[in-house]
């Protein structure tokens, strides 16, 4: 079994300040982990993924995440927030179930960027 907990349902930051979105996971096996972003009335877009290679993963738009096995965490960070970063972010863990790899989604973190 696997699960994902996003520790903050809403995060507000000022433009130009750092972003931290927190995610903890549980998985019976070595997990694959993803961060997706969802802009209003849009589908989900992949930001980055961890698949047991380097523990620090760089994604699109300046985001990165660090896989910490000892803490079962996969927090998403960005050094400097931009107004266009305002969106909902989902942490996702992936494992095989049945005949395909299936995703388990966190409940999401709404990021607000203040001018």
């Amino acid at each position: 079994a696997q699960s994902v907990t996003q520790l903050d349902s809403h995060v507000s930051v000022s433009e130009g300040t750092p972003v931290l979105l927190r995610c903890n996971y549980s998985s019976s096996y070595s997990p694959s982990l993803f961060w997706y972003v969802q802009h209003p009335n849009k589908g989900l877009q992949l930001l980055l993924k961890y698949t047991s290679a380097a523990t620090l993963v760089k994604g699109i738009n300046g985001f990165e995440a660090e896989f910490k096995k000892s803490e079962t965490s996969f927090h998403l960070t960005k050094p400097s927030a931009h107004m266009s970063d305002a969106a909902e972010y989902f942490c996702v863990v992936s494992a095989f179930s049945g005949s395909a790899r299936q995703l388990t989604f966190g409940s999401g973190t709404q990021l607000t960027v203040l001018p």
Partner: protein
Amino acid sequence: NAGVTQTPKFRILKIGQSMTLQCTQDMNHNYMYWYRQDPGMGLKLIYYSVGAGITDKGEVPNGYNVSRSTTEDFPLRLELAAPSQTSVYFCASSPQGTNQPQHFGDGTRLSIL
């Protein structure tokens, strides 16, 4: 590049009506998925398919049916619409193989009244 295309974008149904949500992808992906997203929640898997002619249940399959006659298309059928099925529905696809990310459509917003 079209990617994953869902139709319609919005729909209102009456209780007991039926409808089909369409999903097509042009990336030749073997795997396709249907999710629903309720307010304040992450996505929950309804059904998935690993190839034409093969489908399987996800976490919340009750009240839905799917078919996969071609690689490109993966329609989702609601036979007797219920208010509990009011949600946003997302279709996704991915290549075969481990750790491949899923590509999502823009969603269908469905209200059952």
